[in-house]
């Protein structure tokens, strides 16, 4: 098999890539089972698991009651006993109900048992906003789950990474919080054939540049790429780093890039306070201080509950223009 399967890449949607990653592991390992609300007979609210019930039957693709705490706790128990459950949160907003199970049990059992009991569990679902689901259904929880030792948190943006990181997540012996870019389920990209497992804790350079580093994860990576295009018209070569993995975190990639560019902008859809971008800024000042030519700027969502109205929702999230202007600011250029 070619490395990462990229030699035989085919264009697929993010949705198809996720499904392919799960199927790849279900084929290899009978202990991999899927659980969640409406994922079986109905095919999943977002059609991620469409067709899998017919393919694998009710023992491996399980419809659960509307009880996130209950089925997440059940999945943790299954994982402790050797199964590899992949649990769907219809959206990550519903995980608040399961957060006691996730934080108190999934993240702690291996520690409490002195390493005797592992929890090879994946919890996956759409994270963040952008599709007019309003305040209660629009949260970006990477910082919340990224806070807890014992959990791994990933947030792929390309279809190839969606598949490759799903494969890695299922193989991992620790609970993995798999944050999908819900607004991007229909976007297409090349996806490696077969086993294209993507290692956790390795950021991806989405675009090479020399003048300023734009750092993001999830769907904000695409925003940064568009901002980089706009900046190119000003003669600015922006480097875009896709973190991919929030915990473990690839500090070296940031530091290496900033040593080259001397300027950084951290972008996140979530609110500014206590977010991943703040962590990015802290790491850079800590490890690349002598290379910085300007303060690290954070571009974040507006400090309001996510609005429903389309025009307001657009205003509440970081825009391409905000990112490009933040880059201009650290370049000491006129904003546009």
């Amino acid at each position: 098999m070619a490395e990462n399967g990229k030699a035989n890449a085919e264009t697929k949607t993010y949705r198809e890539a996720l499904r392919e990653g799960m199927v790849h592991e279900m084929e290899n390992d009978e202990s991999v089972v899927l659980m969640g609300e409406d994922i079986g007979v109905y095919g999943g609210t977002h059609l991620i698991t469409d067709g899998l019930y017919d393919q694998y039957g009710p023992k491996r693709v399980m419809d659960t009651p509307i009880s996130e705490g209950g089925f997440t706790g059940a999945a943790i128990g299954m994982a402790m006993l050797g199964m590899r459950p992949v649990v769907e949160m219809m959206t990550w907003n519903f995980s608040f109900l399961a957060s006691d199970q996730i934080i108190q049990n999934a993240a702690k059992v291996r520690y409490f048992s002195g390493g005797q009991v592992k929890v090879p569990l994946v919890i996956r679902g759409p994270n963040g906003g952008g599709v007019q689901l309003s305040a209660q259904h629009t949260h970006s929880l990477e910082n919340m789950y990224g806070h807890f030792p014992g959990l791994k948190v990933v947030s792929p943006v390309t279809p190839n990474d969606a598949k490759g990181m799903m494969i890695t997540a299922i193989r991992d012996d620790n609970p993995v919080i798999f944050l999908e870019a819900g607004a991007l389920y229909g976007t297409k990209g090349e996806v490696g054939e077969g086993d294209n497992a993507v290692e956790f804790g390795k950021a991806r350079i989405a675009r090479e540049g020399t003048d300023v580093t734009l750092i993001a994860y999830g769907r904000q990576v695409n925003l940064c790429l568009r901002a980089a295009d706009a900046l190119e018209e000003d003669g600015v070569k922006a480097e875009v780093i896709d973190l991919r993995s929030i915990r473990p975190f690839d500090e070296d990639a940031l530091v290496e890039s900033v040593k080259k560019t001397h300027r950084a902008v951290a972008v996140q859809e979530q609110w500014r306070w206590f977010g991943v971008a703040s962590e990015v800024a802290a790491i850079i000042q800590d490890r690349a201080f002598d290379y910085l030519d300007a303060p690290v700027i954070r571009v974040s969502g507006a400090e309001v509950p996510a609005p429903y109205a389309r025009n307001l929702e657009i205003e509440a999230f970081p825009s391409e223009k905000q990112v490009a202007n933040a880059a201009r600011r650290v370049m000491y250029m006129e904003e546009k």
Partner: protein
Amino acid sequence: MPEVIMPKMGDAMEEGTVLKWLKGEGDEISVGDPIAEIETDKVTLELEAEDAGTLSNLYASEGDAIPVGDAIAFVAGEGEEAPERGGEAEVEAEEGGEDEGQAATATATEEADSGEGEESSEDSGAPQANGRASDGNFRASPIVRRLARENELDLGKIEGSGPAGRIVERDVRAAMERGDAKAGADGGAEGKAEEAAAPQAAPKAAEAPAPTGAEGTEVQELSRMRKVIAQRMSQSKQEVPHFYATVEVEMDELMSLRKQLNTSLEDEGIKLSVNDFVMKACALGLGKFPNLNALWTSEGLELHEKVNMAMAVALDDGLITPVIKDAGGATLSTISAGAKDLAGRARSGDLKPDEYQGGTFTVSNMGMFGVESFTAIINQPQAAIVAVSAIVKRPSFDEEGNVVPKSLMKLTLSADHRMANGAEGALYMAEVKRLLESPMLLVV
């Protein structure tokens, strides 16, 4: 822990040169033992020990010029060691800011220690604390500080283009390309002497207070020109040791010659002003005093053969100094026509850059406002400027002691004491006076 200090052996003494060490490191010394020969600008004498002990460290090498008050050696008591000196300088610099002068002194001494002082004594430049000593006083991004450290740059010589004047990477890169920000590039012995004197002479500029906002006030932002004038004038007054020399010139003969000339030149539309004569006389007089027709550069005095006479022209918001090229070689009528043309276009804002750059000497005239006497600020990097006051009719004594009316005009020279001595300034002003009082000399 007694240090041997460069003593002050005269009011004007600012530094002394260690000509010769009479004792070496490790020698036992008693109170009163001659330990070194010190040369000041006036005398050479032996420095005697004030403490007994072991001469443990010689900080100054033979030939080093050391500021008054700085340590040149350390006398150790039993079991005592000389303190770490570099560290002290660093600490002073870091504690930062208020005591910049002291840090600069320490640094100057350190450099003198390395024995380079003498060799570079001709490289003199504007006294400026080097990057290390004054680093804390500039706004600069972290990478700028690192580049400055690694490349031994003096951030004081780099203009910041970032917010609030922050020095950012592109400013340093540009300065490195130009190669004009090297620390110590202009810090020869003379520069160091200035630095050494700096603690008293140049306290850090206090930040201007915020507007009071009181009733009946308004805040006017500085125009671009005002800012440049503010910056250049402050810099000149702070950096250039001005000295002044005033002469009073009898103008009667010149006035009558001017009248004659203007009558006969009327048809040609030429009308010579008093200032034209003054500029001509100043330019001619400089022939004998080349270091007053000179520029202060990083490598020493740049002496100019020709006098490019800058003349101060007042504008509504500021002033500008257009330049009459080769005023020494030009005739009075050429100077007159040139001055009229330049002043006119200066007021209408139509001067080209090469018409107000390249001056080597400046004349500033406030006679038309009835000013009886004033002093001008040197237009850096020029060596001197002459302030021209009004012609005033006053009773005066003639040679027989009779009181007679005379037209008198005061001229005040401001000159850069780094470039010329008082005597030269005095002789030059006497020459200008002689030329103006024998005005035919200006016509031939």
